[in-house]
């Protein structure tokens, strides 16, 4: 039984990590290793030529900047909109809370294609098509429910007593909020912000509808993919995945602090 379990885990890990390894390999492989009927599994040579070409053409800096800015904007705006809502929700009776959260999640159930078309038409008229604020606005709609949920869970863990104690100590409502509540809810804020950032960074459907000339990173990867250029696709894809792991790694300790499993007890 034990051997079976270990074998299964080994296979599962290989399956999980293998394809990513292949992606990185392709981005660094000499063309002969990939442009052949029998691609090699292990690297026989390494080259930075594809990476150099990716940056030399100058085509990737604009999408990189656009995605970075959009994601950061979405992250901040999500916190700004969801935090007050979560604070309110945490103080509501449980029934109402679930009802509202359910309503929020119902919004997330809608297929993006059903929202994207009218949004694209309206944005074109308002001059928001192809812009960062426009894209951020549309990403927010899909991000808010999750942000609200995480923050509500987080605010729920802060007992009223702490806030009452702060008030007794002479803090005004604002001071309580700043110094006590938000500080205690910091892990939740970080998680919600991170989730929002990650979602916006990789979002594809809305970006497809709402851009014309200035692509985002996912669209740039798709562009190379569509054109059949394996190497630039791989390099661009690796470039796009890097920040995800870096950010998640940096903010790891906050992620563990949020007890997502608590919702099952």
């Amino acid at each position: 039984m034990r051997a079976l379990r270990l074998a299964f885990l080994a296979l599962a890990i290989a399956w999980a990590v293998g394809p990513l390894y292949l992606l990185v390999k392709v981005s660094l492989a000499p063309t002969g290793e990939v442009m052949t009927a029998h691609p090699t599994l292990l690297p026989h040579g390494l080259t930075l030529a594809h990476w150099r070409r990716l940056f030399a053409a100058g085509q990737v800096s604009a999408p990189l900047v656009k995605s970075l800015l959009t994601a950061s904007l979405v992250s901040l705006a999500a916190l700004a909109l969801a935090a007050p809502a979560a604070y309110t929700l945490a103080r509501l009776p449980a029934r109402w809370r679930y009802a509202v959260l359910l309503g929020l999640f119902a919004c997330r159930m809608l297929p993006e294609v059903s929202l994207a078309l009218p949004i694209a038409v309206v944005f074109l008229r308002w001059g928001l098509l192809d812009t960062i604020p426009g894209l951020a606005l549309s990403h927010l709609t899909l991000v808010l429910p999750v942000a609200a949920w995480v923050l509500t869970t987080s605010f729920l863990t802060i007992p009223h007593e702490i806030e009452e104690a702060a008030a007794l100590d002479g803090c005004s409502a604002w001071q309580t909020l700043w110094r006590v509540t938000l500080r205690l809810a910091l892990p939740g804020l970080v998680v919600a912000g991170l989730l929002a950032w990650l979602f916006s960074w990789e979002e594809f459907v809305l970006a497809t509808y709402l851009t014309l000339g200035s692509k985002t990173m996912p669209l740039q990867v798709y562009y190379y993919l569509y054109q059949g250029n394996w190497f630039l696709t791989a390099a661009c894809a690796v470039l796009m995945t890097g920040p995800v792991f870096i950010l998640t790694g940096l903010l790891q300790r906050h992620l563990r602090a949020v007890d997502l499993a608590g919702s099952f007890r």
Partner: protein
Amino acid sequence: MRPGLRGAILTVLVGLAAPDPAAQAATLILTMRLADAEWQVIRQDVLPPFEQECGCRVRAIDVPPESLTQRLKAMRAAGRMEIDLFAQDNMRLQELVDAGLVQTLSPAEAKMDPAILPALAAEGVLDGRRYFLPFRPNVQITYFNAKKFDADGLAPPRTWDALLAVGRTFKAKEGIGRVLFQGVGGAPTVTQLYEWIASAGGDPFDFADPGTVATFRFLHTLAPLLSPDSRRAKWDTTNDALAQESAYIAQNWPFGVRLLHDYGKTGIRTYSGWAGPAREAHVIGGDVLGIPVGAPHKDLALRLIGYLQSRAVQEVLAARLGWPTIRANATGAVAAWLKPSVEAVQEAMRHGIFRKNVPYWAGYERIASEAVERILWRAQGVSEVLPPLAARLDALRRGGR
């Protein structure tokens, strides 16, 4: 004088004396559909000298020919035309004109260098008015894996029967088809189909025409000999299939030559292709330049057109990409490895035919793609598939949708 007032007067004077910032910072938006290798040359070699000369910026965006109409319509509906100049496939022109999206050009604006080939210059005149100006002609040539052909003692096929024989040899030897047909649907498939129907003496717009039916029957026979990648093959991915040797013979535009050269695939050679039962015919595709109605920088756009048509630029395009040129006098210093394909292109151009420009091309593409998909990939019979589609095509020609 009070310092504040003096400062204000100075500012106004300086402001009046300085060149108009609006003209300096003008950004021209140009759209085209190009492969990655072609974009490199355009962006790095062709556009910068123009930007310096006119003191403006040119932003070149990749827009596939099938979405251009929709994008222009959307911009017009919103009252903001952002595109200044587009290069469009010479097959999707009538729909742009019919939708009133393209500006007519006066004789003065349309004045072209006499070195430009008259047949190509005539392409841009529709309904008696001049809308477009030539940019580059294009014709598909046939690539083949010389190593594999030599190993089996085969010669590049010059007739349909020879093609079948080559296909059968490879299939028998390897158990898998090695002939590539661009079967993804849409423009790549229909362009190839048009050419094949024309070489069989058929009418591409009539699916009941005997030549057309014969072509589909031939495709049906060819189907088992096709490489599985044909299902998804289009202009870009065909080169990959050749490079990765999942196909040994394929038709494609000449830009692939440079790509394969970059990949070090010297074993893949080109020639003009084969003849059908009636004749050898090769569709002359390529792009023409047009200015959308409401374009913000029309004068700059006209200048850019002149620049792109100039001898210097056409020679660069010929030398670096192997593109056929619109001028009779631009041969350029073609690199040795590019020469054979340039000859193949010239030979193919000699059998060149122009596609008929019709307003219902988008609908035609849909019907033709469906025919190819059902006959090639779903193994449905020709006599079962074609008649209803022929009826739909007829209705389309008479003005349906």
